[in-house]
Every structure is written in C-alpha cells, then in structure tokens.
C-alpha cells in the first residue's frame, strides 16, 4: 500500500533519501539490494492444510491453504485448481478500510498469483482425479496483518511457504467416485518461485521498499524468478516510466537477491 498522505513530510523525506542514496545508503542503513530481515513461521493454523506467517521488516502476512475437491475449468480439464487471494485487513494500517477489495488489493493478489502459477510451482496435472469431472482444488488466502511496504514479496513468500508445508488427504478414484482416505500426502510442489520487488527513488533502484520508501518511489517493479534463474512473472507499477536498461538491471538484481531468499524459504519449509 503506497500511501502518500502527508505531502510536505514526504517531500522532505524523499529529498533526504535521494541524497543518502547518492552515497549508496538508505534511511534504515540497508544496502540498496538488501531486503529487510525475513522471518518465516509455518504450521501455525492447525485447521488449514498449510499455513505460514511471514514477517518482512514490519510487514506481516499470514497465508492459509485450504484443499478440497471440485470441478476443473472447462479449458483445463486435466489440471487441478490453484487460486491465490489476498486481503489487506482493516487492522493492517490506519489507511486500510473494510469493504470490497481496492484496486491495490486486487493487483496484489493477481501479481502474487501470477508468480506462483507461471512458475509452475505446483504440478497441477498431479491434482487431476477424473479428467473434466473432478480435481483437487487448492485455495491460498492471504491476510495482510500489518503494512510496512512491499506487500508483494511478503505475500508471495507466505504463499510459497504455506504451499511448501501443506498436506492434503490422499484421494482415490473408485468407479468414477472420489474417495477420501485418512492418509496425508504433501502438495506436489516442484519449484520455489521467489518474488523480488524494487522501487525507484530518484534514479536508484532499491530492493524491498518500506512504506516510507514506497511513499517516495515513483516506480515499482516486481520480478519473480525460479530455481533455475528463469524469469516467470513481472509487473511494473506506478504511473512512471522505466528505461530498458533499468529493466534488465532489475532482472539481474532480482535473480541474484532471489537466490539468497530461496535458501531461507527452503530452510523454513523443509
């Protein structure tokens, strides 16, 4: 949630940030490509098939996975369903409100979903029970509990950690009927996609912007990469431009930083 609420204070802060960034420094003394401390806790919701709480600086997101069976989409009859959703709770910030999801919340959910889906993190073909009739449905719902910038990455890590530790009932197909057993099996997770968001303040790109930095940024770019260093999803945001050279610089930073974060996520989900 970028919040430009106090124009004067933010303009002064931005000027200060730009000055600091010229010397390679940030307000909170991080390096330009250094994310805030990341904490991942899993398995905190017993009634969910999998869950995770991610704390990235002061941003906190809880993701929960619920798995059931359902009908596949007509255009993908042989694939299970994976739906990622996100909500910014009214308690998460003084500027958040209850009600239908804002444009921002919709973009958040869709960008996170895209990273998970496009990386083929979960092998959806393994979630097909009876082609065209019955598949396993995986819903990942994310609650943003506290907003301090970079909801994209925090939410994405929560989803990956929750899915990575999810267990589902083993389903059997008997004469066109689905039978649920008492045996628990892991969700078929094949990859660990990692989202890295960069914000541009002045002409510098910084990794993992805080709320304070988001108020001063004029452009944001989120890049999701997979274990092989491939790019799976990207979203440029905010009403500003980016040069082609800076896009490629952001891609390289995201691959590099993503590698380190992937190690942390894998550690937390093993």
């Amino acid at each position, binding site marked *: 949630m970028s919040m430009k609420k106090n124009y004067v204070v933010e303009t002064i802060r931005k000027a200060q940030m730009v000055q600091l960034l010229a010397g390679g420094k940030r307000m909170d003394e991080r390096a330009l490509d250094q994310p805030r401390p990341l904490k991942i806790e899993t398995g905190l919701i017993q009634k969910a098939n999998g869950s995770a709480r991610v704390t990235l600086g002061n941003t906190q997101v809880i993701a929960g996975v619920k798995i059931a069976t359902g009908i596949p989409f007509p*255009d993908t009859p042989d694939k299970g369903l994976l739906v990622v959703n996100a909500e910014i709770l009214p308690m998460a910030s003084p500027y958040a409100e209850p009600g239908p999801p804002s*444009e921002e919340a*919709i*973009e958040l*959910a*869709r960008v996170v979903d*895209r990273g998970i*889906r*496009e*990386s*083929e993190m979960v092998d959806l073909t393994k979630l097909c029970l009876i082609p065209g009739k019955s598949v396993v449905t995986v819903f990942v719902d994310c609650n943003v509990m506290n907003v301090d910038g970079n909801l994209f990455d925090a939410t994405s890590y929560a989803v990956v950690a929750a899915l990575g530790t999810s267990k589902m009932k083993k389903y059997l197909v008997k004469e066109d009927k689905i039978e649920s057993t008492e045996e628990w099996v892991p969700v078929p997770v094949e990859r660990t996609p990692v989202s890295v968001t960069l914000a541009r303040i002045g002409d510098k790109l910084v990794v993992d912007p805080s709320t304070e930095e988001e108020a001063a940024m004029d452009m944001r*770019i989120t*890049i999701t990469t*997979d274990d*092989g*260093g*491939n*790019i*799976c*999803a*990207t*979203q*440029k*945001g*905010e*009403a*500003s*431009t*980016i*040069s*082609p050279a800076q*896009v*490629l610089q952001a*891609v*390289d930073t995201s*691959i590099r930083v993503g590698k380190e974060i992937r190690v942390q996520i894998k550690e937390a989900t093993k």
Partner: protein
Amino acid sequence: MVEAKRLIDDKGKRLDGRKWNELRPISLQVGVMKNADGSAYIEWGKNKIMAAVYGPKEVHPKHQVLPDRALLRCRYHMAPFSVDERKNPAPSRREIEISKVIREALEPAVIVEDYPRTAIEVWVEVLQSDGGSRCAGITAASLALADAGINMRDLVVGCSCGLIEDEVVSDLDDTEDKEGNGDMPVAIMPNLGQVTLLQVDGIYTREQFQKAFELAIEKGKEIYGMQRQALTERFFGGEAKSSQVEEAAE
C-alpha cells in the same frame, strides 16, 4: 509438454502463417466518436477496440480533486459478446487490474500538471477480443488522448511478445496466448525511449527475457509509425503524408 497441435512449424511458420517477428494486421482510425472529446478505434488481429476520452472536465466526486494536476481515470472493459463464452458485464478482477496498469502506462505521457483540479477520463471498450487486447487498448487510448487535444510528452504504444514452443515471438494471438508458454505485454513512449507498462508471465531464461523485451520495443516502434499515420489522416485528410505533419509542426 507435448502440444496437441504445433503452434509453430519446422519452417518457423505460425498457425496464421506469420513469421516469429511479424505483427498481425493493424488498422487505426482517429476521431470516430461524435460526443467524445477524443476517440480512436483499433483493429488488431481479431481485436476490435474503441477508446474514447472525455476531459479535462470537472471532478466528481469532488473529494478526489488533485490540487496540482489532473486526475486520470481509466476503465478497460470487455463487452459480454467479445469472447467465446459470454462474459459477465460486471468488471472482473482482471479488468480492474488491467484498468490500473493501462492508467499507469498512459499517465507518464499525459502532462497532467497542465490541468490541475480536473479529470481526464479514458474509456477502453473491447468489442471483440483477441490476444494482446491491453496493448491494443493502450495504443488506441493514447491516440484518443491526442485527438482530444490533451498535452502529451509522447504517444504510448503497446505491443506484446512472448514464448510459443519455447521460441520468442512477437504479437501473440488468442490461441498462442492460451496455449503458448508466456506473454509479455510492453508499452513504450517511443520518442523518449521509456517503458511505461511491463508485465510478464511464462518461464523465460535471462536471454529469452531480453530478446522478447527488446523485440516488443522494436515492434512498438513499428506500430508508432501507424499511429502517426492515423493522426495525419485525422487532421490533414486521407491524402496527407507524415512529411506534411512535420512541416506543419515546424
């Protein structure tokens, strides 16, 4: 993954006969709506999209007024009959996101500071959809803004590239978008050399990413020529050449 039908054959020909770096046919018309302050119609492949601009006008509700610049509003909407299965006319989450990224793609080109306390509205209606509708919508919308006489830094032009059968290709159509491995819509301000929209899905190696991204920019510049021609026709009649526009500009 084994594809039931090949999207690109051994000779490098795509289903509709195009080469990897070819565009679908594009036609552009500017100033086609009577009531709107500016409008443009684009046909791009099977896409048929109307863009209309109203403004600068009074802001309603008033609390949304921006004291130092215009409020740019944008709605991308798909007609219920624009797709194979009837689409619910209520805005979907996809349309809300696309409206947002289109607004963010156009706003850098609009000199919003010139119109404080006003609203500029951009309506993009997809009458028939094919692959790359957001890029076609942006291309038409920037023409509609120009047609409305809104001060702009540059036109904005969109073009999507992507991966089919793991090959980088330009301008994916519906089938290629659905069955291919990835889509990368890019919008640029061609004269300023800046990117205003970038979205990616699919799995790209670093090399493929750069190739697709650079191809989208190159193709965008090609479409920019068509945009100029369409504006020329609007303001200088069908016979005029773009050289006349340059003369007029001087």
